[in-house]
């Protein structure tokens, strides 16, 4: 599974309250959530993300609350994948579960600038900066996680598995 997009970079400890402020948690439609993605840091983010971007984060990306609305907002705003030095665990699980690829890759912050073209091969754990001609090797995602992503999220994956039984 490969994903492609231009990079938008953020720093360390990007928390779910800036990714999606608590006051929007009453919104149920993911397209409404998307309008407020990253509002805590950059209200223009949804506009920038619309053509399909890859979010590059530092350490502990997505720390804070368990709100799944955070990765949902990113996904529907146009984020194709989140690459970070490390993730807060609930954000990571939530992203996978809603079908937003998330991959941990040491050194990613230094290897990518805003606007660089990035290609991620999820099975192989390869992160390529096509603008700079650099490739980083990330730990591979376990096959069952790639399968959840390929199915489009945990619910679709579960439906498939329950049907097989």
């Amino acid at each position: 599974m490969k994903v492609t997009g231009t990079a938008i970079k953020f720093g360390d400890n990007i928390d779910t309250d800036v990714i999606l402020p608590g006051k929007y948690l009453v919104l149920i439609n993911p397209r409404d959530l998307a309008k407020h993605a990253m509002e805590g840091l950059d209200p223009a983010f949804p506009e920038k993300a619309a053509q399909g971007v890859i979010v590059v984060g530092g350490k502990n990306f997505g720390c804070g609350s368990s709100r799944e609305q955070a990765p949902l907002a990113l996904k529907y705003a146009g984020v194709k994948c989140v690459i970070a030095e490390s993730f807060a665990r609930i954000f990571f699980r939530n992203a996978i579960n809603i079908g937003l690829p998330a991959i941990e890759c040491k050194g990613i912050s230094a290897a990518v600038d805003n606007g660089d073209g990035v290609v991620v091969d999820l099975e192989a754990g390869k992160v390529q900066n096509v603008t700079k001609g650099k490739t980083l090797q990330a730990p591979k995602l376990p096959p069952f996680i790639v399968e959840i992503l390929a199915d489009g999220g945990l619910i679709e994956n579960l439906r498939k598995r329950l049907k097989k039984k």
Partner: protein
Amino acid sequence: MNITEKILAKASGKTSVRPGEIVEANVDMVMVHDLTGPLAVEAFRRIGMEKVWDNQKAVVILDHQVPAESVKVAELHKMMRQFAKEQGIRLYDVGKGGICHQVMPEKGHVLPSTVIVGADSHTCTYGAFGAFATGIGSTEAAAVFATGRIWLKVPSAIRVNVEGKFRKYTAPKDLILHVIGKLGAGGAIYKSVEFTGSTIREMSVAGRMTLCNMTVEMGAKNGIVEPDETTRDFLKGRTTKPLAPFESLKSDADAAYEKVVDIDVADLGSQVACPAQVDNVKPASELSNVTLDQAFIGSCTNGRIEDLRAAAEILKGRQVKDGVRTLVIPASQEVYRQALNEGLIEIFTDAGALVCGSTCGPCLGGHIGLLAPGETCVSTSNRNFIGRMGSTQANVYLASPATVAASAVTGHITDPQELEASKA
């Protein structure tokens, strides 16, 4: 093995597990609330199953935006009530419960040695009772509704060993802020944080909950304390289920820890987390230049009776400073009633504080007590992120109930020791 490993091994039908191993665990209890529940219900419907795997093992708690503050929220609450009714799931409605992490143990849903997942990041609070408890998202909660199982990576562990007696006016909140300041906001990502030592053994259930509650602010998967007689006393009358023998819930002498942190609380002073990261921790005494617009005593971190007593001790016979609106919110209906019996509510109202019904309230900036741009709040809750309590241009400082109460009195951040000293 340590306690966390023992619980995960048992829950996944294994004799032993090691850090990094992925296990499929049976879930003993799953909780959703009014903000994460609706998405979970939607996801559950998409799975296409009619009934949850075990309706005795699921709980719905309305707490984040209660009573409903808008028609939109009222609709979501209605949806959760309907779901609970149709599934035969226990629901704690407005006036019947309180904040989820207080209600779960109070009502006997948290037992030592069980695996509990909740669609809320502070589910890790229940480690205070020797349970393995961790936060998940809504979709995952739906999957647990359907299957009763969840995959988990066995975490490596950090042991925080605490010795010494707290000084007057310092509390478990000061301890956990100190630990977070030391280890950092990402200092325990994916890991288990186990609290040991004589200070923990002597600590109340309330204090242990405060510690475990905030382990997620270091990125931890779970926080945990060995269950003991204090745990047993708390659970008495709250559950009819037999308790697992506590002897099997001790970490082995040769259990492996990635790191051991030793702390002596004897010389720990009042601590404050400054904006906008929980690990930005400073002594309260250094922050007297921070003037306040709001003070908040409550939340799943510090809304228990012990916390209200600590705040009342300081507010008794005093007035909160003009210009500092002070909100006190008991963590549950049970805590509220007890505060009423003990005369604490009277002390708060006499001091000029507003006591609200049990809810998450301003903690997450979704409902009541929000901050305007440029305003500053000192709070007993657990997060001070940008925008957490309202405007993205507001500042939130986190502290213990005693520190928040003392600060409400003076109008600026105040070490309670200093306030008391000034009286003498």
